């Protein structure tokens, strides 16, 4: 039999159900791999900010002694659950009681929330114990996981390159086989882009499908939790246990139907729209080649490829970089040193305490976005920036509605390039922001989209994005599954 970590999550679930693998054995295997990465320090990928068993207060410092969560000490703790104890890596920004939840920020270093995010609690009840917390860009602001107070995460395909971001720790951990699957969050592409750059599957669900309660907010009207997995089947399996209305999140919605395991082999009759605006200019040649090959593959499966227009997509990134910072500037106001997290020690008085705490606690990118957001909401500028950005957002949603009148799904490259080098874009925020230009329009429209690996360019994975109307996750997963089967992408190269 293969090593436990070589199984996909769905295969592991089956193996445990069949009795050929024990949940404890699986947990130990992953725990050893995750802990080794953590212990390796700069010699590792730096996927994690905490691994199960560490004293929470030692977050960001070193690996602890004990291993298994309390529940494993009871025999058959996860027997009878749907996911049979297949462990889960969770992005740092999800609140998890008993484990640090720091959102990649110094201002929350060592912070232990007194409650657990709804989606994490749901998944635990479904049978996924917490394996580790994963590294991320600070407050999910970034596309490379370089903006973390806990150091950058490296891409397992090439350690001189970034894994993408902001859910880079989750993506790299799954790609490297350090976790069977992981939770990420996507605000403008933070699940899909790192999934693309790490050669795995990442799904951003319909806005409202998954509760945001307990997710440390970046931009409330855009943030959405989703799975990062080795394949499409795992994504569907995890998503099925994530969705559902949460009375603690007023913006959450009941998912109108069950998430099904994807099974399509053909794409006969499926109309796939290729938006001109997101599949040409600004995208690397190698990425476009892999994309074209994937489209040919889809046609071979019976899909009809049709060009479509998203006339306002060109303005999506501008609108996004008004709306997201505006919400963030308000969401991050609570980090004031009064109740939790960092507080500057030697402040003279209140304003001084606020200023120093936030000066010391936030990184450069977070400060940049707080200032940007504060500016666009200021009196006299609101209409010109925030008001106009909201109107653009409405136009983009209308573009998608119009497109979906003609096609079933849209298909684009996920990211304009393969994984770039560490430090390559840190000095130029705008070039970093451009990473999200294929993913941001779907975020603004609140519609679901998946990224699946569709080939290699320069030996690095290329992602293909499939997007559909709100709550079309099953259709997206089915199409992604059929393509995945025909493309036969092999991600094993990245395993540590």
């Amino acid at each position: 039999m293969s090593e436990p970590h070589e199984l996909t999550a769905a295969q592991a679930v089956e193996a445990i159900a069949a009795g050929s693998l024990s949940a404890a054995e699986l947990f130990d295997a992953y725990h050893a791999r995750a802990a080794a990465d953590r212990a390796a320090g700069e010699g590792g990928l730096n996927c994690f900010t905490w691994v199960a068993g560490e004293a929470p207060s030692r977050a960001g410092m070193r690996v602890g002694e004990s291993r298994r969560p309390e529940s494993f000490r009871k025999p058959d703790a996860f027997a009878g659950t749907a996911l049979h104890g297949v462990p889960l890596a969770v992005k740092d920004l999800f609140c998890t009681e008993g484990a640090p939840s720091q959102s990649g920020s110094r201002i929350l270093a060592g912070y232990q929330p007194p409650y657990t995010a709804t989606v994490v609690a749901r998944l635990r009840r479904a049978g996924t114990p917490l394996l580790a917390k994963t590294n991320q860009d600070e407050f999910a602001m970034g596309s490379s996981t370089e903006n973390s107070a806990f150091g950058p995460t490296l891409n397992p395909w090439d350690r001189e390159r970034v894994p993408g971001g902001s859910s880079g720790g989750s993506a790299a951990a799954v790609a490297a086989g350090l976790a069977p699957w992981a939770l990420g969050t996507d605000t403008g592409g933070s699940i899909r882009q790192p999934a693309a750059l790490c050669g795995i599957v990442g799904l951003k669900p319909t806005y409202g499908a998954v509760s945001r309660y307990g997710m440390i907010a970046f931009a409330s009207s855009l943030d959405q939790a989703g799975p990062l997995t080795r394949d499409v089947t795992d994504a569907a399996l995890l998503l099925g246990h994530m969705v559902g209305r949460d009375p603690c999140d007023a913006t959450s919605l009941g998912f109108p139907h069950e998430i099904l395991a994807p099974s399509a082999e053909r794409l006969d009759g499926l109309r796939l729209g290729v938006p001109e605006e997101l599949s040409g200019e600004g995208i690397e040649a190698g990425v476009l080649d892999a994309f074209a090959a994937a489209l040919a593959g889809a046609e071979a499966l019976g899909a009809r490829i049709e060009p479509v227009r998203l006339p306002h997509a060109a303005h999506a990134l501008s609108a996004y970089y008004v709306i997201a910072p505006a919400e963030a500037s308000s969401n991050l106001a609570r980090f004031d040193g009064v109740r939790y997290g960092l507080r500057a020690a030697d402040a003279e008085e209140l304003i001084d305490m606020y200023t120093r705490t936030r000066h010391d606690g936030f990184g450069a990118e977070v400060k940049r976005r707080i200032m940007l957001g504060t500016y666009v909401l200021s009196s006299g500028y609101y209409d010109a920036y925030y008001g106009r950005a909201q109107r653009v957002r409405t136009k983009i949603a209308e573009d998608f509605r119009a497109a979906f009148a003609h096609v079933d799904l849209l298909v684009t490259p996920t990211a304009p390039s393969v994984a770039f080098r560490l430090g390559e874009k840190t000095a130029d925020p705008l070039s970093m922001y451009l990473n999200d230009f294929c993913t941001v329009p779907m975020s603004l429209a609140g519609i679901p989209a998946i990224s699946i690996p569709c080939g290699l360019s320069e030996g690095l994975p290329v992602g293909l994005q499939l997007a559909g109307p709100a709550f079309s996750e099953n259709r997206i997963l089915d199409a992604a599954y059929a393509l995945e089967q025909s493309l036969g992408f092999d991600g094993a190269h990245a395993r540590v």
Partner: protein
Amino acid sequence: MERTRVSEALRTPSQPPPGGSIKKDDRYEPVIGLEIHVQLATATKMFCGCELSFGEPPNTRTCAVCLGLPGSLPVANARAVHFGLMIGLALGSELAPRSIFHRKNYFYPDLPKGYQISQYDEPLCRGGRLGEVRIHRVHLEEDAAKLIHVGSSGRIHGSEDSIVDFNRGGTPLAEIVTEPDLRSPEQAGEWLRLLRSTLRALGVSDVNMEEGSLRCDANISLRAAGGGRLGVKTELKNMNSFRFIERGIRAEMERQEQILRGGGEVVQETLHFDPASGAITSLRSKEEAHDYRYFPEPDLLPVAIDQQMIDAARADMSELPADRAQRYQRELGLSADSAQALSSRAALGDFFEAALAAGAPPAQREPAPPAQTLANWVAVELASRLEDGRGAGGDPSHSRVTPQALARLVAMVAAKRVSVGAARQVLDTLLAEGGDPEAIVQARGLAAIDGGEELAAVVAAALAANADAAQRVREGNAKAIGPIVGAVMRETRGRADGAEVSRLINEQLGIT
């Protein structure tokens, strides 16, 4: 009427300004608008499931949401929306089919999220009127936490430590904003009392100013009496009693008038009135005013109001004080004062109506007591006795007097079977012990003495015993009759009718 009085008060002699641009007889009138914060008496907070706090130990009524912990999200309290609609209906406001919450951003330790969730340009209710004052809007928001400054100064500057109690944080508030329709401090106080009794009748708030469940800010400016351009306004913050509101507004009017008469300009600013010293101090001027960076709260959906919700709000409303007062005047012919006294406190009005319905028992010979007499007994005699601590928080239904008993007693008074003085004694007994007034009158021998032989004899004896006073009355000093009447009342233990006693005294002294 109030208008005249205040204008008079303002006509204080003062130096004419240099240049004499204001003539000596020029007068100012104040233009006053109020902003009232009403803590809603819901079971739980505005955006979380914490119970409201009533003096519990600090920070025991808190959760992730009202502490603003990372990752927590607000969910709007449906009951608070319901109460907001009831207030809107009571004030005749237009209820917005769709209203939204905004974030009001500023940093302060009593504001855990760094923003207050409030309503901005799409409030729950717009317009309306209560009495003579137009309503601008009513909106919902959350209360801030309570800051306690440890140290000598008692304020955040110079304190050694500041501690925060988050129990109050997140309590639902309705903010009611009036148009600037008030023209005197007294009128402001009077109107606020009407608002308070209206809110009390709705049952949406405890409306206790001392405990902060009703808080009032006033916007004040002066302009030339009788109209003209509005002056620069100032905002007087958080006055926590009716008396302080009237005093605070008056003090601010005087301050502004002094500035204007000195040729100066009033600066738009937020002010604090210190009731102890009477001083007005600046909290912040407009130059340092916050830019609150309002934007729609993305964590909440718009509040959508449908007919069902409006019907439910209407169904929960009892008769409002203004309507009840009108009904009492129109249908029962009560005086305006009595009608207002009985309607501003629902418990008194309810008791009055129960007594009126009870009337006189059929066995008695006298007719039911007249409504006005009964009103006086409830609003004056009974109410004052309940005020002085003898009855159940001022609520007569919690006292030992039943509406039937009071109706019977008042019927006896009206039929002159019991004098007013004796009836007061019976009421005291009823409050202390309960019981039937007829029986008490019998048992204590308090039945009125008719104007017959018996009373005439008592009067004659009293005249003899007070010969000096009798002489002065004869000489035309009508006031001298007092001691003689007093002697008769003492002798009869209050059972005699005062008017009849006076008549007999005058008769026996030969005065007609």
